């Protein structure tokens, strides 16, 4: 039988929603139920991974159904080398996130329902090949995450949740404008409007139009990444969110940004991507160093991990905009790795917070005596995060730096500084938290319980596998990297018409208006 596996994968968690709404389950039952659903979805994800043909380029397992024919909108999903690992990561991390939130006692059913809703929305945005369908999933992420931070978060939760919502909503408003404009171009050029990105690739867009559209898309995705200087929502959101929310935010939701850039910006606007590459690379490197430096200053351990995310996501951005096979593959690897290691870090911090009820590094110290296993978990995640060879992060960061040396030696060199700084702030945090004399207050804390061990072991195993044997992942990523790099390389940056580089392009609204007027009926 021909099972539409991707559809099953996306909507299986959604099936849990009516059950949680109607079944007046006890808190314990609701938790177990959500866990079972997410594990079932992981099995489906593994089935998809099994069906994925590693060496093929292009989209696989494509499913297409007309949605609104007259508007050119279709339900179109498919998977390629970029999305396959992000999908598996999502399905892998959601059960962990659910296990991390066993301690939630306030409105458990709603909490679990929102977690499952988030899983559906994230999987949908990684798999959608129809631009408007992507946008639907991308926007649908907002509300559950907003509620999760705002209802279950800590002290400044309302501030953080509203900031998160407005930042991302403002970003995606421009994305919607860009999408509608692209649709208009397809209806002009092909006679039939379509949101199918494979059709949109064939559009011939004027240089200025392409660059403006690039900017519209870029803002939406850069907010999600988050790229310096659009990152200020992230420390608040990560810090105030409950552990579950932090894990989903850091491990999964942030990946929608770079994924969108890779999938849409590079594919649809290759010329503009090359044109803006230097500027984006510069911002990425600023983010790497800035995030690391600020992380070093933090006294709140969760905020420290949050700023380390800014730094790590800078590597992803840097890799994508090198337009080399190494850089692109490295960026995708780095997305997966960052998901695993930062997810684990937040999990460890969450365990600590549940026991000590503080996130202030100054109030901790010597915790390794009472909770050696939590200390070990934190250490493994830290070592992975700073790129120790043999653990997963090393591979991604190494490839990105390799690629960036190819593209721009200076940027590559500065990025390396970020790795050194990461070693400083992560190990220093470990030392201040777990080493030294034990404080009186924290004597006799309980170490990890079996539930927590069950959540940690698979993640550590995955980190080791990807660190020692990255070929499994890279083999599947590489064909897609090669094709996107070849596609971007095939265009030349248009230097005519707009002299003076970036600066000229900030001003010429007039030029765009003129082109649009010519295109309009």
């Amino acid at each position, binding site marked *: 039988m021909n099972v539409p596996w991707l559809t099953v994968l996306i909507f299986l968690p959604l099936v849990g929603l009516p059950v949680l709404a109607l079944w007046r389950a006890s808190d314990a039952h609701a938790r177990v139920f959500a866990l079972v659903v997410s594990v079932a979805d992981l099995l489906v994800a593994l089935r998809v991974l099994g069906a994925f043909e590693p060496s093929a380029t292009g989209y696989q397992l494509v499913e297409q159904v007309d949605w609104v024919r007259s508007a050119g909108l279709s339900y179109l999903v498919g998977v390629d080398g970029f999305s396959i690992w992000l999908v598996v990561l999502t399905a892998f991390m959601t059960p962990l996130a659910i296990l991390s939130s066993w301690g939630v006692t306030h409105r458990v059913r709603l909490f679990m329902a929102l977690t499952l809703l988030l899983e559906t929305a994230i999987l949908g945005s990684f798999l959608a090949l129809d631009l408007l369908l992507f946008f639907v*999933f991308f926007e649908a992420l907002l509300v559950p995450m907003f509620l999760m931070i705002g*209802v279950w978060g800590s002290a400044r939760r309302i501030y953080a949740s509203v900031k998160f919502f*407005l930042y991302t909503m403002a970003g995606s408003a421009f994305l919607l404008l860009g999408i509608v*404009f692209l649709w208009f171009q397809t209806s002009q050029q092909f006679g039939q409007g379509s949101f199918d990105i494979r059709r949109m690739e064939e559009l011939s867009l004027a240089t200025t139009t392409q660059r403006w559209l690039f900017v519209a898309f870029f803002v939406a995705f850069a907010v999600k990444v988050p790229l310096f200087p659009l990152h200020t929502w992230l420390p608040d959101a990560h810090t105030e969110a409950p552990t579950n929310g932090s894990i989903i935010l850091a491990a999964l939701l942030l990946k929608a940004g770079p994924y969108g850039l890779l999938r849409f910006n590079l594919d649809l606007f290759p010329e503009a991507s090359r044109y803006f590459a230097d500027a984006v690379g510069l911002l990425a490197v600023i983010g790497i160093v800035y995030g690391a430096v600020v992380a070093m200053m933090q006294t709140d351990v969760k905020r420290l991990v949050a700023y380390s995310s800014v730094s790590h996501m800078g590597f992803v951005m840097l890799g994508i905009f090198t337009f080399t096979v190494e850089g692109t593959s490295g960026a995708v690897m780095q997305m997966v790795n960052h998901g695993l290691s930062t997810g684990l870090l937040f999990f460890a911090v969450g365990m600590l917070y549940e026991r000590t009820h503080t996130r202030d590094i100054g109030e901790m110290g010597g915790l390794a005596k009472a909770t050696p296993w939590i200390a070990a978990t934190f250490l493994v995640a830290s070592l992975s995060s700073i790129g120790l060879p043999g653990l997963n992060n090393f591979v991604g960061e190494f490839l990105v730096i390799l690629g960036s040396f190819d593209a721009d030696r200076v940027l590559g060199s500065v990025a390396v500084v970020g790795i050194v700084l990461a070693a400083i702030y992560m190990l220093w945090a470990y030392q201040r938290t777990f080493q030294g004399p034990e404080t009186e207050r924290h004597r006799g804390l309980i170490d990890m319980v079996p539930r927590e061990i069950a959540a940690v072991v698979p993640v550590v195993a995955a980190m080791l596998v990807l660190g020692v044997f990255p070929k499994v992942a890279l083999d599947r990523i590489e064909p897609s990297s090669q094709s996107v790099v070849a596609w971007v390389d095939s265009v030349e940056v248009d230097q005519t018409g707009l002299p003076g580089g970036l600066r000229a392009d900030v001003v010429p609204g007039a030029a765009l208006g003129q082109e649009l007027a010519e295109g309009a009926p």
Partner: protein
Amino acid sequence: MIQTPSVQLEAIWPELFLVGTGIVVLLAGVLFRRIERVSLLLFSLAGVAGAAATSIRLWDWEGAPTALAGSVSVDRFGVVVRLVILGTAAIGLVLAHHYFERSGEGRSELYALLLFATAGMTLFAVSADLIVAFLALEILSLPLYVLTGLSSRLGSIEAAMKYFLLGAFSSAFFLFGVAMAYGSAGSTRLSAIAEALGGRTGSVALGVAAVGLLTVGFAFKVSAVPFHMWTPDVYQGAPTAVTAFMSAGTKVAAFAALMRVFNVAFQPLAWDWQPLLWVLAAISMVAGSVLAIAQTDIKRMLAYSGISHAGFVLLGLTAPGEVGISAALFYLVAYSATVIGAFGVVMLVSSRGERLTTLSSYAGLARRSPVLAGLLSLFLLSLAGIPPTVGFVAKVRVFQAATEAGFWPLTLIGVLASVVAAFFYLRVIVLMFMRDPEEDTVPDDTLLPRLTLAIPAALVLVLGVFPGLIAGFLDQAAVLRW
């Protein structure tokens, strides 16, 4: 020999049904004083259902495009608009019945007035002659003035007074516009005006003047800036159930009439009215969204949100012809389902009468009544245009239409306005879910109105996920016959 015009009553069966039911209800209320008002409600609902059935039969009408000596048009556009209005009327009847029974002000005129107003709305949407349109406008307005003041609260009476005075002004503008149109074309029939203006036999200057004056009349009824001043006061003062009905029904009817008049009679002057609608759309979207932020009363906030939504419909209408009409129709379906639901929830939260309409009384609603908080969140998200609700699809469709017509800067304004708007919808959700309750009043937990509100809620979700269910019908309905 005198030729008598053929009388094709089928074309106005729905209106006859509504008015007939209204008269019977009115008489029954007077003659049988002991009558249970529930039976009046059921009879009125039956009348609405009959009107719906007779209008569906017009879907495959094969006769002339207009009937009754060219005074009403018979087309699929009319069928769809009628059904939307009748749907809001049915929900409005149930809500109003519940509201007045609970506040102890139940009376039988209520049903008759609602039915008359509904008849005026549907007639407004199908009128093919400006004089008939004016009549319909009055038929719909007068009962609404009375309904607004039906409660004995001072606020309600004040609102009715304001509505009446300003409404009378706008009617005068409308009538003046009709006179100009007659001066230009020598006829008030839409098709005749189109021919005169298209064939350059009519005076274009007078035609443009007519467009301007009629726009004032329409803009008042759809509450577009700068003719929106009455909206917040009236929406706040009127009994909430009446607000629910009129915010949805009036807007649909007035926009339908506007589409027909501008796209048929003044189609030759499209280049003149497009910029007019452009400006109205832009300032309505921006002013509505910005002013809504400053509100502390939820009914006023929804009123300003309605002003901004009028701007979004106008945004779709800047695209002339079928594209714009189809997009605007979808928007109206989405908006009316959403707004009637939102006001319905507000009515239930107020429990009895008009208490607890300040925003702060929504704090912690999720704890006091999770169902109502969930419903209101759904409606607010749809108003904000967040997928997977119908409001999102509606926004995309009007954006598509405006962009296709070459008005992408207007789309940009719309996109920015919807970001601003997201803020105040969000604030209510924050209050309901993230704050502790200040009141300990339990909201109205009667089953009937809740079941009624399940209908718009289901529409918001189902049409948000499967907009194709009605998109095809709306595309067919977007062809105006004249």
